[in-house]
């Protein structure tokens, strides 16, 4: 825990910030589906901004794997990045991402550390 806190502190002091990307999927497949609630958006304003706020900037479906596209992205702190991964990232044992459902659309949360 202490090592984790020290690592986080060292990264936060670097002056760089991780990016949060949210991908939309056409179907949830067989993955676990977690409905997003207002409480999720209150606890994670960056997620709110990307899915339904000013950081929403959907790309076309036609590039890469055509069953998914990027809905948007924004800078987050390292602590927020970790919190998002803990809440919506892949399961520790299965490494499978849960699909987040909001208003009939399915999303994945991906964070990139510089």
């Amino acid at each position: 825990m202490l090592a984790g806190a020290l690592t986080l502190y060292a990264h936060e002091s670097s002056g760089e910030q991780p990016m949060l990307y949210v991908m939309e999927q056409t179907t949830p497949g067989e993955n676990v589906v977690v409905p997003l609630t207002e409480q999720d958006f209150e606890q994670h304003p960056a997620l709110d901004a990307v899915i339904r706020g000013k950081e929403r900037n959907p790309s076309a479906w036609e590039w890469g794997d055509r069953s998914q596209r990027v809905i948007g992205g924004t800078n987050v702190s390292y602590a927020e990045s970790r919190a998002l991964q803990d809440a919506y990232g892949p399961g520790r044992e299965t490494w499978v991402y849960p699909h987040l459902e909001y208003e009939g659309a399915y999303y994945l949360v991906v964070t990139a550390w510089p």
Partner: protein
Amino acid sequence: MEPDKKRLIIIGIVAFIGVVLLVAAVMFGVTTFVTLITGVDGPPQMLVVEVVGEEGLQNASVIRLTDRDLQQHPVLATAIREAGSNPNVPASTPVPMTGAECLALTESFGVYTANAPILEYDGVYYATRVLIH
């Protein structure tokens, strides 16, 4: 007897703190080392962007980039800034990116696909390449 007991307690506390700090330092070092070598999410990948003339467009698909696109994809912004900064050197140096950034760029702009589209920003056209080490 009493002072010996106190001394033992103090030595025990100091030893405990020492062990905790040692373990933390080792884990911190290993985490940093692994992160430096592999990146957080996989082997290092590089994005290269090259300025192309209109004759190079042929039948390629063209995606027009907005300022917001570049804000949301800082790796692409860095590469485009670099490629456009010197007319004598039309290609950027390889810009490192994580697997997640590569995935986001591929799904958004097809950078890591066969027949990757040409990207246009501010009237200049750019071809992209992904290098994997």
